[in-house]
């Protein structure tokens, strides 16, 4: 066996270029398969970890997925706002433990600005029971104070006391100059610690701050020159909050949650909807599931192509090795040994390919993890293969061994005489 192994190894080394190309193609397809699996699992965990202990998300009636995406993941926009009056009504409902209001729609250099209250810093939970902490400073105390998510502070190199201007709208890149709320700059009062959730990529001001920057706007247009209300004349007490975009809500009991959800969904004063975040996430995964399945099929085909490539290279190499096989038989290797040799060769190739795939996926996730997190807010963990990943590795290895029987069978059928009599 050891002899066979060393023979197989030497034979593979003898055809180094073909061998390494075969290993590379299997390794690449393996890395693709494991990568897709890692991203899938990472995305689910990362999304599920973003919001904890929130029973309901409430917003204007519309798509439930949309409500979840803009409220929690800052993806997309609300088509309608809800009145502050309705928010107060539900906030003061006896079944409600706490609420966190969000007012969305403004941005700062591509990062979203969120109007909220002290409740956000007090009650928001992620990764089961972790709460927001400040790396520096504290929550906004005045109308023109702003707190930065850690990514915002890092990307724009801001520190406490810096003055920044927010823009109307959430288009990526710099806000349109016309839309700048340049006359009312905000002062950085705090910077949050990293949470590895979308919280890191937003700026937070008070609800009154959102009202203040729009105080002199009329019908969604900036004020005419000379009609601006200077920031110095704006005090928190005079700011009236009229609407918010959505709010998170925690009930005192789980049973009350379901009753409250129905109450909100059938509220007659305003068309609102309440969703259970975990339930809506599950709907999201089911929707994405189809695309995931398609991707899975594609990667399986890529693996298949890789394995076929291995088969082709082993099979064609047999022509060059007719004499080698014949000599092996002459010196006493039985058909079983010949078969074992070729199966070992293909098994070794598959094993090397799998190892390369694992190494590549570790390396790639290590390199791309920060980029993916920055760009998509997706925390893909660098971790050993998932159970499904191990299954794929095992299956490829097994397929590699099985494929070895094809050239082995051919070599076995080529008689001793064949290799010795024909000029090769």
């Amino acid at each position, binding site marked *: 066996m050891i002899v066979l192994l060393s023979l197989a190894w030497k034979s593979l080394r003898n055809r180094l270029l073909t061998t390494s190309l075969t290993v590379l193609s299997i390794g690449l397809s393996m890395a693709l398969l494991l990568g897709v699996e890692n991203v899938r699992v990472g995305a689910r965990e990362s999304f599920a970890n973003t919001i904890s202990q929130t029973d309901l998300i409430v917003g204007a009636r519309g798509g439930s997925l949309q409500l979840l995406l803009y409220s929690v993941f800052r993806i997309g926009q609300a088509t309608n706002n809800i009145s502050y009056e309705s928010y107060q009504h539900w906030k003061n409902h006896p079944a409600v433990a706490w609420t966190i209001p969000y007012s969305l729609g403004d941005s700062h250099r591509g990062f979203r600005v969120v109007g909220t209250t002290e409740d956000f810093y007090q009650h928001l939970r992620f990764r089961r029971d972790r709460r927001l902490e400040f790396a520096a400073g504290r929550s906004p105390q005045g109308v023109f104070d702003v707190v930065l998510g850690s990514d915002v502070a890092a990307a724009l190199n801001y520190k406490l006391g810096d003055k920044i201007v927010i823009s109307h709208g959430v288009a990526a890149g710099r806000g349109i100059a016309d839309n700048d709320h340049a006359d009312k700059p905000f002062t950085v009062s705090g910077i949050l610690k990293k949470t590895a959730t979308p919280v890191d990529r937003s700026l937070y001001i008070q609800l009154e701050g959102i009202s203040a920057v729009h105080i002199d706007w009329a019908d969604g247009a900036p004020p005419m020159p000379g009609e601006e209300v200077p920031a110095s004349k704006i005090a928190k007490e005079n700011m009236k909050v009229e609407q918010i975009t959505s709010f998170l809500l925690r009930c005192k009991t*789980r*049973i009350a949650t*379901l009753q409250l959800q129905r109450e909100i969904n*059938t509220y007659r004063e305003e*068309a609102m909807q309440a969703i*259970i975040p*975990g*339930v809506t996430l*599950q709907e999201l995964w089911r929707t994405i599931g189809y695309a995931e399945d398609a991707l899975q099929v594609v990667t399986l085909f890529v693996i298949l192509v890789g394995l076929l490539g291995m088969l082709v290279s082993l099979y064609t190499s047999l022509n060059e090795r007719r004499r080698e096989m014949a000599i092996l038989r002459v010196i006493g290797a039985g058909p079983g040994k010949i078969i074992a040799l070729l199966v070992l060769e293909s098994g070794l190739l598959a094993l090397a390919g799998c190892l390369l795939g694992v190494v590549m996926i570790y390396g790639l996730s290590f390199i791309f993890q920060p980029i993916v997190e920055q760009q998509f807010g997706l925390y893909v963990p660098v971790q050993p293969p998932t159970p499904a990943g191990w299954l794929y590795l095992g299956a490829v290895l097994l397929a590699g061994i099985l494929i070895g029987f094809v050239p082995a069978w051919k070599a076995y059928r080529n008689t001793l005489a064949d290799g010795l009599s024909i000029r090769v």
Partner: protein
Amino acid sequence: MSRFALFGTLALAAVVHLGAQPRAHKAHEHGHAKLNIAFETTTGTPVGAVELESPADSILGFEHAAKTPADKAKQEKALATLKARFGEMVILPAGCKMTPAKVEVHVEGQHAEVHAEFNAKCAGPIAGKTISFGFAKVFPKIEEVEVQMLAGTQQAKLEVEKDKGTLQIAK
């Protein structure tokens, strides 16, 4: 002139009438029911609630307000069946018991819904156990049930078609 006055009054009456009646309508699909399950905890002796919202047609066989004695008898019998056999429709882990809290019929416009609430109590932990369903056996007209469950920190959803599928309570 008086004709205009009359027209004006009628128009005003129509506006007032429309204003008084909210025009929002809930989705209503025959054969499609909603089930909510909530448990405060999944350890110790969990206490919870289970509520079913179903088109009346699927349970009573009709959707109008029961006015004739025949309809009333039919409705009473169906609701009694619902109360008595709810444990066969929503099969909670062993050791859990449900008692009816409220079972009523809401008629709204041309549609009616049966709304049933049950209290649930379990003798032991339910973490890691499953909940299965048997609606079709009791009310064959219930074809699809959208199940939402809150259990401790778990939030889950399941579409149950023809009683297929189980809900796994997280460990």
